C-alpha cells in the first residue's frame, strides 16, 4: 500500500486504523499525508471534504448533525484555503524578486568596479562589503597623466536598491568630470549640485575626496559630511583624526567644501572608512574609536590589501558574521 497517496481510500484506511487503536504510527502517517497534500497544493477545505467522505463510508449511519457540522467546518475553511494559495503565489513572486535583485547586485558590482592603481611609493588596500545584496558604499580610484591619485569614498544614508542607484549616478558624474578638474573641493561642489538636482531630498550622500601627489607625498582632501578618516604619523606613532567640515551632498546647492592637506612621510598611513566600520556594534554597544584604531594597529604592518581584509575579518567575527551596515575600508600606506 502506498500510504501517503492523496485519495479517500488511503485516508479512510488511515482514519479507521487510528480510531481503532489511537496509535502514534497512524498519526505519523497523517503528518506525512498533510505534508504531501501541501506539496500538491491541496487546500484545507479539500482535506475536510476527504475527511467527510471517509467518515460517511466508515459510518454509513453518521448522525445528520455531525454531517452538517462537518459541512459547516468546510465552509469555514474556504478563506484559509485562499490565504494559503495566495501565500504560494507570493512565495513564487518573492523568489523572482530575489533573483532579480541578485542580478542587479552583480550588475552594480560590474558598474562600480574600480581597480587599485599601481602608484610608486604608495601601498593601497581597499575592501567594500555590503551588509545586504546591494552596496550603498562606494570607493573609486583615478590617476591622471602625472600619476596623481584621486580617491573617492562615499556612503549613501539609506540602504538597498535606492542607495545603489544613487551610487551609480555618483560614479558616472565623477567619470564625466574633465581630467583637469582634480581639486577635491571643486569636485565635491560639482557633485553636490548633481545630487541636489537629481536625488530625492530624503536621500543623503556623504563623501570624502582626496588627491594624492606621489612626488611630494601631499594629500589634499575635502569631505561632504563623511566619516572622518585617520592619519597615522609614524614619527609620533600616533593616529590623528582627519577633521574636516562640509555639508552632506544634496542638501543645499550653495554648499562649499573647505580643502585640507597633510604631507605623508615614509611609513605614514591614511585610513579612510565608512560608518559601517566605526558604527560596528557588539551586541547593544557601539565600539569606540580607540577599539577601531587598536584593531587597525594590529594589522597595519602587513601589506595594505592583506591588512584591510584582516581588519574586515576581525569586525565580521565581532558582529557574528552579520554586518549591520555596508563596510568599506581603505589603507594608503607610504
Amino acid at each position: 500500500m502506498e500510504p501517503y497517496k492523496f485519495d479517500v481510500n488511503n485516508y479512510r484506511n488511515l482514519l479507521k486504523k487510528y480510531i481503532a487503536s489511537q496509535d502514534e504510527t497512524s498519526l505519523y502517517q497523517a503528518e506525512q499525508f498533510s505534508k504531501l497534500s501541501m506539496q500538491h497544493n491541496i487546500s484545507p477545505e479539500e482535506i475536510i471534504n476527504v475527511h467527510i467522505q471517509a467518515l460517511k463510508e466508515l459510518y454509513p449511519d453518521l448522525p445528520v448533525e455531525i454531517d452538517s457540522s462537518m459541512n459547516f467546518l468546510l465552509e469555514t475553511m474556504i478563506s484559509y484555503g485562499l490565504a494559503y494559495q495566495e501565500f504560494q503565489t507570493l512565495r513564487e513572486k518573492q523568489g523572482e524578486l530575489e533573483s532579480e535583485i541578485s542580478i542587479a547586485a552583480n550588475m552594480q558590482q560590474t558598474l562600480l568596479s574600480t581597480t587599485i592603481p599601481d602608484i610608486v611609493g604608495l601601498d593601497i588596500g581597499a575592501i567594500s562589503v555590503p551588509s545586504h545584496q546591494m552596496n550603498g558604499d562606494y570607493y573609486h580610484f583615478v590617476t591622471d597623466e602625472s600619476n596623481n591619485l584621486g580617491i573617492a569614498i562615499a556612503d549613501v544614508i539609506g540602504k538597498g536598491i535606492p542607495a545603489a542607484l544613487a551610487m551609480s549616478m555618483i560614479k558616472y558624474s565623477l567619470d564625466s568630470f574633465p581630467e583637469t578638474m582634480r581639486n577635491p573641493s571643486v569636485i565635491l561642489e560639482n557633485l553636490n549640485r548633481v545630487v541636489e538636482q537629481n536625488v530625492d531630498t530624503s536621500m543623503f550622500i556623504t563623501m570624502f575626496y582626496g588627491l594624492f601627489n606621489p612626488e611630494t607625498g601631499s594629500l589634499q582632501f575635502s569631505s561632504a559630511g563623511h566619516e572622518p578618516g585617520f592619519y597615522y604619523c609614524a614619527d609620533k606613532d600616533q593616529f590623528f583624526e582627519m577633521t574636516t567640515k562640509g555639508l552632506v551632498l544634496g542638501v543645499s546647492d550653495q554648499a562649499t567644501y573647505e580643502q585640507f592637506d597633510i604631507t605623508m612621510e615614509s611609513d605614514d598611513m591614511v585610513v579612510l572608512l565608512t560608518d559601517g566600520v566605526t558604527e560596528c556594534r557588539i551586541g547593544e554597544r557601539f565600539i569606540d574609536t580607540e577599539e577601531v584604531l587598536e584593531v587597525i594597529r594590529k594589522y597595519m604592518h602587513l601589506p595594505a590589501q592583506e591588512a584591510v581584509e584582516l581588519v574586515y575579518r576581525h569586525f565580521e567575527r565581532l558582529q557574528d558574521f552579520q554586518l549591520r551596515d555596508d563596510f568599506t575600508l581603505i589603507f594608503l600606506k607610504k
Partner: protein
Amino acid sequence: MITKSSVQIRKEWDIVGARQMGRNLAKELGFGTVDQARITTAISELARNIYLYADKGKVAYEKIEDMNKKGLRIVASDQGPGIHDLSKVMEDGFSTSGGLGAGLPGVKRLMDCFDIVSEPGMGTTITTIKWVR
C-alpha cells in the same frame, strides 16, 4: 439551454440572498460540496463589493448546460464609481482586508473564468464561470 435569474443587492442582507440563490443553482447543477462552498464565497465577495463600493447593483446567474459542459456563470454588475486601477486591484495583497487571499484575486482563484469590465464613473461588471468537474 440557459436559465437566468438574479438578485438585487441594496443592503447587506441581500448578500445572503445572493449566496442562497447561488448555492441552490450550484446544487442543482451537481457541484460537489467543496465547489459549492467556493462558488458561494466568490458570490459573497462580489456582492459585498457592490454593497460597499457601488451602493447597489445585482448578481445574475446563468446555468450553462451544454451537450458536453455544465457550469454556472455569475455576473455581478453595478453603476457605481468603477474601479480605477484594475491591475492594481487584481494584485495579491492589495485588498483592504490586508491580503488574506480574499477580495477579487480570491474570486479569480475560486472560479474557473474571471473577467472585469469597469469604466470609472460608469460602473463595474464582473463575469465569472465555474464548470462542473
